[in-house]
């Protein structure tokens, strides 16, 4: 290769970029026509240029899928965010004394729950102090899980609903809420068939693609609880009843029998002015996943069935040969009752 070939090959790279003047272009191509080495070099550069363009296009086509993977990962990134939203709680948990005080408070919650007769009053009072953001709930559930499992409170053992009026210091409209959890193991088809036959309309939450909800009228609610109660493979369990004043925050926490997947609910409920409905703002915590639902309106006698999907990315487990995402689903039935002041 002589010095003129070196210059021409530099210019061939410029030609690829369209950066040659007309005179330079003519000169380069005159040389290429009579020099086999430069001709071969030109063909190689053109082929590489096409390959680069094609590769660039291929990458651009996959951008959307790559974005989706980030957004999917984002749905699991709530824990740290919500901790940042609640510095007070972090401060409490960092300091041994405040942590001890919080533990005492939580024990009081557990004691209140375990003594069924006074459970509702104790729960209503103590939950006023439990922060109802997800970070607070997370710590709450974590503490609960670290203790002996207490299982679910049998609803039949709760005192009659009218005893709500005996709760001290309660004046004004009382909103009573309870959740029924349905842990689904393998009977998806049976459940799906049931929802289909009942024309249950699922709506996906705007805030979380893994959260769905359906409003159930009293008849459907009854059928659902009957169905879940009679199906051996489904386990429908009730949480303690939560009572709170209208507009006041409250939390419900409960433990599954396996103690693997606790669900907690933070709730604010307001009766709408026309007395025809209730507005709910709620946050669920399931394991380490948060689900939020602000400003959900329901009829006064409606129940809401939530479908919470927990996606586990098994890629994170090095010992797991499967690289497919796995899902498990829990259904939570939220029932609200409104008691006007006597």
């Amino acid at each position, binding site marked *: *290769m002589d010095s003129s070939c*070196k210059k021409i*090959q*530099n210019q061939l*790279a*410029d030609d*690829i*970029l369209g*950066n040659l003047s007309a005179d330079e272009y003519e000169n380069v191509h005159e040389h290429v026509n009579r020099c086999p080495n430069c001709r071969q*070099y030109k063909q*190689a*550069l053109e*082929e*590489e*240029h096409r*390959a*680069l*363009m*094609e*590769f*660039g296009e*291929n*990458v*651009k086509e996959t*951008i959307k899928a*790559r*974005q989706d*993977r*980030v*957004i999917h*990962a*984002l*749905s699991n*990134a*709530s824990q*740290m*965010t*919500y901790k*940042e*939203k609640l510095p007070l709680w972090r401060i409490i948990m960092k300091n041994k004394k405040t942590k001890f005080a919080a533990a005492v408070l939580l024990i009081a919650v557990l004691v209140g729950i375990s003594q069924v007769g006074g459970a509702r009053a104790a729960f209503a009072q103590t939950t006023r102090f439990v922060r109802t953001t997800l970070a607070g709930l997370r710590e709450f559930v974590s503490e609960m899980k670290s203790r002996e499992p207490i299982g679910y409170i049998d609803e039949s053992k709760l005192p009659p609903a009218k005893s709500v009026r005996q709760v001290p210091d309660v004046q004004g409209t009382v909103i009573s809420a309870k959740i029924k959890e349905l842990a689904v193991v393998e009977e998806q088809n049976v459940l799906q068939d049931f929802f289909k036959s009942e024309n249950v309309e699922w709506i996906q939450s*705007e*805030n*979380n693609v893994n959260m769905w909800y359906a409003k159930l009228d009293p008849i459907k609610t009854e059928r659902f609880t009957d169905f879940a109660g009679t199906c051996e493979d489904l386990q429908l369990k009730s949480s303690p009843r939560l009572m709170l004043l209208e507009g006041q925050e409250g939390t419900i926490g409960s433990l599954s029998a396996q103690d693997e997947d606790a669900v907690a609910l933070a709730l604010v409920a307001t009766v709408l002015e026309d007395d025809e409905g209730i507005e709910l703002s709620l946050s669920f915590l399931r394991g380490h996943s948060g689900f*939020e639902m602000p400003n959900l309106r329901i009829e006064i006698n409606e129940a809401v069935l939530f479908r919470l999907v927990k996606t586990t990315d098994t890629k994170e487990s090095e010992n797991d040969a499967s690289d497919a995402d796995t899902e498990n689903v829990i259904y939570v039935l939220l029932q609200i009752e409104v008691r006007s002041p006597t």
Partner: protein
Amino acid sequence: LDERSDENLVMASRRGNKTAYAQLVRRHYEHVFIVCLGVVGNVEDAEDATQEALLKGFLQLKKLRDGAQFRPWITKIAKNLCFNFVRRKQRGRQIIAEKATSSVHSQYQNDRLQRAIEHLPMEIRQPLVMYYFDSRNVLSVANDLNISTSAVYSRLQCAIKELHRLMTGQGDKNG
């Protein structure tokens, strides 16, 4: 939601609104990804760095004072992650001398290209990636890298020649 400004989306995201942050991800992903690709030179590594940067950004949004500056802010986070990534890797440079054939499968061609791009010096890789992977013109690349258009042409020319050398194992590096 599409028309909301970055500032508004950042404010909503700070309150934990992941839908708003997802919108920011969609809006700025490609830019951040191209920047990362320019630094690390490898599509998979660029994706990892982009994802890490965007998730880190979500968790550190409170540190961003001006929401309108989200793009340069997140790009800076991504670049820092990429530089750390490159330092960690510290792979020795090697010549990829594989004979080119006219009948290569496109995936094989892409693999060879990617390996060659990865071994380009960063100062010539960045304009090459922006030019070919982000469909940018020379002026736009020059503005983004804060260099003259003639410098961009010069670096692109150098990148094209070096890429050819890496892919064919031919020629002198300086020739």
